[in-house]
């Protein structure tokens, strides 16, 4: 077990280090999310009576689109440098590769989300900086990264990979996104905890299902 955790940690740490050296994925994701929010701002400005109502949707669409960019790169880098076979030859359980990559993707997407929230607050003049929203961001990006990492390992081996990933990923994570948007909207409208319990349940159940199925099927994706 401890060997498994060490391997997972090594992969996670490797992803963070390569990212720190190039800052390629994070900067692209962040700039893209920022652009998306600014475009939404112009698209809705003056046309929507109550801007508060569209903010949850704007936030989550920006996060998911930006996250898609990062996920696309997750395994492409390994493919381009031909290091994936090296990782697969390592004498450790292959799910360590999944968990390591997933943890790194989760961290990247979550940090983009955390930086984007105060900016949305500024641009839309709606206060989103609050502790309970962080929980929604955590649970929402977790489910997204759990499936996204697996599908990114699938699409890296297909033709037209960067086009295929959103088509595969969006319908699968849609329930997570819907729940996250509803929860964000509920928090903005100061709804009681009991009113949101169903959405929390849906979000957490999906997070668990996604992680478990991804864990069980990952070895079938990378076996060559």
């Amino acid at each position, binding site marked *: 077990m401890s060997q498994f955790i060490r391997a997972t940690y090594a992969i996670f740490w490797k992803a963070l280090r390569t990212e720190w050296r190039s800052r390629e994925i994070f900067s692209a994701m962040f700039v893209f999310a920022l652009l998306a929010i600014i475009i939404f701002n112009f698209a809705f400005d003056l046309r929507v009576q109550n801007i508060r109502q569209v903010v949850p949707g704007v936030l989550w669409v920006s996060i998911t689109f930006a996250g898609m960019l990062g996920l696309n790169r997750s395994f492409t880098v390994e493919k381009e440098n031909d290091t994936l076979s090296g990782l697969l030859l390592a004498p450790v359980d292959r799910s360590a590769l999944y968990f390591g990559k997933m943890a790194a993707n989760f961290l990247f997407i979550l940090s983009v989300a955390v930086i984007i929230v105060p900016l949305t607050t500024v641009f839309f003049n709606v206060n989103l900086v609050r502790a309970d929203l962080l929980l929604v961001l955590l649970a929402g990006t977790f489910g997204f990264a759990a*499936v996204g990492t*697996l599908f990114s390992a*699938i*699409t890296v*081996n*297909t*033709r*037209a*990979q960067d086009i*295929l990933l959103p*088509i*595969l990923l*969006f*319908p*699968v994570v*849609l*329930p997570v996104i819907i729940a996250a948007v509803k929860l964000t909207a509920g928090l903005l409208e100061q709804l009681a905890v009991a009113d949101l319990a169903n959405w929390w349940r849906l979000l957490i159940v999906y997070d668990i*299902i996604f992680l478990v*199925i991804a864990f069980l*099927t990952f070895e*079938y*994706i990378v*076996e060559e």
Partner: protein
Amino acid sequence: MQRTSSKWLVMSTIIAYAAVIIALFMGFKAPAAVNVGTVQLQWAQRIIYFHVPVAWVFMLSFTVSFVASIVFLITKKRIWDLVALAGVELGLTFATAAVISGSIWARPAWNTWWTWDPRLTTMAITWLLYVAYFMLRGAVEEPERQARFAAVYSIFSYISVPITFFSIRLARTIHPLLVKGNDFGLAKGMRPAFFAGLIAFTLLYIVLLWHRLRVLQLASRVEALRARILEQEL
């Protein structure tokens, strides 16, 4: 061997189509609904003899595909990949039929073709998932890898099927609910036509699955032969 199997297939095909025609005819002859206001709605209500069987078949078909995908990942036998593929093809066809028939009914009943009700939303997601399944298959050339990826994706897609089924039982929805606990929402006179429809469309499904599997198997044999000939020429 080949000849006898195709003779059985022709016979069952004729029986299945005859059953479907009889069941639909029974649907037209069944007593009209008493709890709906207008004559137009009474006729619209008869969609149930088509809509429910078709919806049942698409869920059955995706379930077949889900099970076949798991068996494929465990056994790696090509036939299970073909079953999974045929299951998705037929499932998507019947799902489309369910959506279209539902939409035709919704126009007089709800005064709209489409609304983002929980049942319709989950159904739309399911439909998109299985369309994506074909895009994935199309993007992978090597057959063995194509089968593996498709099997994994089919397992993920299937999460959406039970959710579509239970969406009208768990969430607030305007979609009618036929079976509620021990309550069955059809009058006695309507039941024969309803169950005849379920049986007839299930028969039709089995026959179509048989056809598809046969064609897919032949196609994969042709593919293998072609590969062998190309190898010899080289």
